């Protein structure tokens, strides 16, 4: 991995349409479903070349998920896309019984995750979806940090027969990875080496966390940075190794501090390697309207917040 200032900023959701087209062109037997948000998810791009493989079911997420399960039962690799508030929000039981319990080959691509949806406000801002999805037995849960990793994760999902939940976002973000970066389910990616503290981030918080590490380095604190794109199955070995080698942990995520990356890391630490830990995340409250940048400030999801948490964690060593 290298930092790529040359690549233009892009939203992780932009990977979806590109990934569907790539998979279909390469011969994967995929079909894709949307629920009246296809221009935003990008799912409708599949229809430009493979119209028979794309279905829009209207604004009916529960129907979409159960249809997805039925299509998967006929041997298809099925992608279903909506916003993260509606999927799982409108169709949790359908995901639970028909996708997870039946272990269907269905990939849920949830766009517009987190508060960075922006102006649409609280009802549109999913801060609890990762808690719901990671609690389902057998569900793989992935939160890519940039458009490159997002496309790689979607391709990896198509190569696997199990259910996946992939959360992507709306705002255009700096690209962290080169085109050659490989995504591997369940593997933390070491983005920066350090021995004083480990910063573990996912999704939109990865790039700000790298900036926090630079700030900390200027203060003499060498921070290790792990991109924990996979929340489940969690790379527990990388967490325990980081705890033993650096003695302090910080998690950073665009999600409620209850039930997301921070909770999963805390559980691992408590059971296997008790270590001082601090969390950066949404402090158990709903979102509100505002530009996505102003919301990240309001909810303290910033490089400054990550650096401050790291100083607190180091002080507790």
């Amino acid at each position, binding site marked *: 991995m290298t930092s790529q200032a040359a690549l233009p900023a892009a939203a992780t959701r932009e990977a979806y349409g590109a990934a569907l087209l790539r998979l279909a062109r390469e011969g994967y037997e995929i*079909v894709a479903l949307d629920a009246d948000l296809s221009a935003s998810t990008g799912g409708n791009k599949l229809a430009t070349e493979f119209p*028979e*493989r794309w*279905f829009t*079911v*209207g604004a*009916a997420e*529960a*129907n979409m*998920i*159960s*249809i*997805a*399960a*039925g*299509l*998967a*039962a*006929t*041997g*298809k690799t099925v992608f279903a896309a909506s916003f993260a508030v509606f999927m799982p929000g409108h169709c949790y*039981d*359908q995901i*639970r*019984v*028909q996708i997870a*319990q*039946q272990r269907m080959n269905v990939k849920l691509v949830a766009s517009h995750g987190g508060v960075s949806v922006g102006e649409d406000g609280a009802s549109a801002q999913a801060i609890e979806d990762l808690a719901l999805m990671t609690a389902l037995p057998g569900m793989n849960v992935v939160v890519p940090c940039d458009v490159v990793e997002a496309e790689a994760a979607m391709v990896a999902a198509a190569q696997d027969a199990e259910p996946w939940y992939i959360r992507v976002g709306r705002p255009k973000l700096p690209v962290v990875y080169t085109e050659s970066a490989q995504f591997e389910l369940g593997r933390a990616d070491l983005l920066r080496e350090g021995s004083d503290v480990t910063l573990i981030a996912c999704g939109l918080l990865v790039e700000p966390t790298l900036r926090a590490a630079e700030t900390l380095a200027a203060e003499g604190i060498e921070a290790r940075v792990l991109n924990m794109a996979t929340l489940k199955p969690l790379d527990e070995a990388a967490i325990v190794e980081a705890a033993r080698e650096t003695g302090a942990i910080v998690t950073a995520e665009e999600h409620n501090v209850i039930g997301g990356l921070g909770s999963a890391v805390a559980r691992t630490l408590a059971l296997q390697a008790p270590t001082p830990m601090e969390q950066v995340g949404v402090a158990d409250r709903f979102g509100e309207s505002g530009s996505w940048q102003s919301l990240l400030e309001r909810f303290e999801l910033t490089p400054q917040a990550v650096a401050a948490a790291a100083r607190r964690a180091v002080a507790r060593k």
Partner: protein
Amino acid sequence: MTTTEQITQARDAAELEAIARRIREQIVRMTHAAQSGHPGGSLSAVEILTALYFGGVMRHDPSDPDWSERDRFVLSKGHATPVIYAALAEAGYFSADWISSFRSLGSELQGHVVRGRPPGVEMSGGALGMGLSFSVGLALGHRLDGRKARVWCLLGDGELNEGQNWEAAMSAAHFGLDRITAIVDRNHFQNDGAGTEIMRIEPLAEKWSAFGWGVHEVDGHDVGAVTQALCAARETDGAPQVVIAETVKGKGVSFMAENPAGWHGKGPSDAQLAQALEEIHS
């Protein structure tokens, strides 16, 4: 090797009635052994499953449950496991010896349907309202693959309170799926009591019709008439079809039929089992 001939062969009327009696017996035996389960809404659907599996309606092969060209039967009212297990055992999908293990730890016969367990169960369920949407997905997949397989989906009438059914009904018509047939087990009772008191669903035929479905209404305990209605649905092209089967919750066991709300979800005692068996075989 599976052939169309061996699959569609229908039994004669007397044989179908004998099969229905055996399925009823297994339903009361199963729920008695488990001292739980859902006998009422299973007994109401006996002739429906008898017609589907033994009346020459469905293409299926008990010796080859994964046959790719098979018709799919989707039990959306996923609590009616006694009737589907009894029908599948009668058809030879698995040994009738399994029946006594119903709902016990480690059994292949789970309380609510689980896909592939036992063989012949196409969909996991128990949460109402999902089966018709799943059926739409199956039908879309079959159409993509150019398969002739049909999908038969059994819904409870109380289940129709769930809004997802109507999302599914809308989408089946929108997608022009005419190899899908819904069957409504119209037994008029749901968990909390009579449907007229809990949540009225009339005018039912008009609702389906308004959603673009062809509607067939039938006496759900006349196995010959049910078979005819299902075959008529099968032969109708151009739109999805629904068969509304007028039934009695607890049919065949007097004390259940007289108190349907009381027999939604429990098993009979020893004495009640004896009485039920006597009535079923009289």
